[in-house]
């Protein structure tokens, strides 16, 4: 099983994330407790981090990328709602606007569900990757293995520190009383069964 502590990746000359301070490693290695003694649950199934550090071809293109993300926010939100294994997602720029960070927490192993993300957020990944240096061949849905390889190379895995570390998104939704068909559809305007982002894509 892959370590979720050793987060340093630097493949094929791509920009590597900065190393974690030594003292922070223990903090990041805090894992949710096992479900119970007889469980077959994998700690690594619940609330995994997908933290992509994506270098831009040119930081001058950052405003255009930001505008794209704002324009496609509804698509992204619909995709998150439809998959039911993403706890949250946000985009962040690096301080010098040379990189885009995609920060998410999701349930399941990334290899198994990566293409669900692609399939449910039609074209969003392709649109973003047009701005990214060293992007895999596009469209990604035609090259799933290379896309997966790219994601693995640019991911900085880290254990989540969560207020509810044992719960999946699906379980949170059920505990919230959201059942049946409403699990699968974006709430209509004015009927916010699920919280909607209160800010823009960045933040």
């Amino acid at each position, binding site marked *: 099983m892959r370590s979720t502590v050793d987060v340093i990746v630097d493949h094929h000359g791509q920009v590597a994330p900065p190393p974690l301070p030594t003292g922070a490693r223990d903090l990041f290695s805090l894992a949710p407790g096992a*479900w119970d003694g007889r*469980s077959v649950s994998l700690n690594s199934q619940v609330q995994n981090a997908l933290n992509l550090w994506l270098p831009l071809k040119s930081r001058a293109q950052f405003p255009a990328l930001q505008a794209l993300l704002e324009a496609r926010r509804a698509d992204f939100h619909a995709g998150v709602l439809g998959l039911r294994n993403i706890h949250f997602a946000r985009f962040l720029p690096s301080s010098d606007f040379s990189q885009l960070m995609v920060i998410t927490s999701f349930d399941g192993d990334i290899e198994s569900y990566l293409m*669900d993300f692609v399939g449910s957020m*039609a074209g969003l990944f392709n649109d973003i990757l047009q701005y990214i240096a060293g992007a895999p061949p596009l469209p990604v849905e035609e090259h799933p293995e290379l896309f997966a390889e790219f994601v693995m190379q640019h991911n900085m895995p880290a254990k989540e520190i969560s207020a509810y570390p044992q719960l999946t998104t699906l379980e949170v939704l059920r505990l919230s009383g959201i059942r049946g*068909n409403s699990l699968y559809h974006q709430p209509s305007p004015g009927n916010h069964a699920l919280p909607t982002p209160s800010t823009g894509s960045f933040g």
Partner: protein
Amino acid sequence: MAPLVDLNDIQGNILRGYRRLGDVRYLLVSINSVAGGRQLLDTMLRGTDAVPAVETAAEWDEHPAACVNVSLTYPGLQALGVSEVALQGFPAAFQQGSAARSTASADETDAPWFGVGIGDIGDSAPENWVIGGPNNPVVHVVISVFTDEATVPARESVSAGLRDVFTACAVTEIAVRDGSTFPDGAVHFGYRDGIAQPQVAGRPGPRRPDMQPDALTGDFLLGRGFRNTFQGNYLGAIPAALGDNGTYMAFRILSQDVRAFEEFIRRTGARFDMEPELVAAKMVGRWRNGVPLSVSPNDDLAPLTDGQLNAFDHGTTIDHPTNFDDSDGARCPFGAHIRRMNPRGGPVIGIQHNRRIIRRGVPYGPKFDYDPAVPDDGAERGLLGAFICGDLVAQFEFLQKVWANMDISAPMLRGSRDPLVGWQPDGGGRFSIPTGDSRGVLTSHDVPRLVTTRGSLYLFMPGIGGLRTLATGGA
């Protein structure tokens, strides 16, 4: 509406099953020379006096007495002299083969109580296989011969004809596996099987009643024009002349422990004050006659025609907003085999109505009628399973690894695996039955391992044009 697919270029038994042909013989062959291998395929495309030509998906006026189909392993493609460029176009999982994939997935685990990969560990590990394992001869070609031995026995005559072809082509027969559907249409464990097949867009024949949408053609057939659920297609870098209208198959020999199943449902029924047949139905999600629990939760008497056995869902859907919402699993447990392996409109993570697979399973070994007073006959019995899909990883392996052997894809699965096909730990696994009443959730902790993998091969099943390309050395 004209079909979307070229039925004449697709091998039979993919888009439709040979329902009237309940007997199958699989002949496993190795190729000894490029020329001999190509001659074998060329002969099979043409047919001989004794061997019908490779069956296609085209409509027939009269049901054939025998249907023959051909699939190849990755080493088989190599043995046919396929170019390196074309070979590298195939997905890594197919190149690696079933045994390597099973071993690799098992190696991902840290400990037995963590993941078990696709479940081929312990007795199911490749080193224990009789076909496809590291201790078995390398298989290049798998030929299936479907017949109806009770009505028009043709198995032996076709086999004899094939063996003449093998001799002429100097190929070697490695193994033979026979299977026969029981007279009542059931398989071992006493269930009717193969009911919930995806209805692939563009397939022949009328559409059966089904609350699930048609599966996308690209989830089952390779071809640049066939879109899959992930908005792409699975042809990848395979040359179109070789890959178009082809598909993949996981051919599995699965031993089934019928006695353990029967003893478990009786033991659990006594513990929970529940009829053993209801325990069995809760494990499977259907009564033995195929009636789904979601339609008939208390008995198997719902007056459903064969065509209606798949017209149900576990929840409400856009098209069926008033359908019974079994969000608590009170009718069909979330852990039931058919709900794990096809969650339909019920809660599940990921894209809905995804990961579909076509199953062509035929039982092997003698039927076992359970009698506690009669000792086990010691005979091996099980299923010759052909699991057909456009991508072995996204479909077959995902089902085995995530839905059968992990426990967060749907609610109320924690700590359990598929009670029918999942791996189970020593001492037994967990299975929960929500009752929907004051009894709450009843949980058993002693589910035995009921299915053991005895062999497995990853196969490419080319279209007719693809077979012709291979036969002429055009790939």
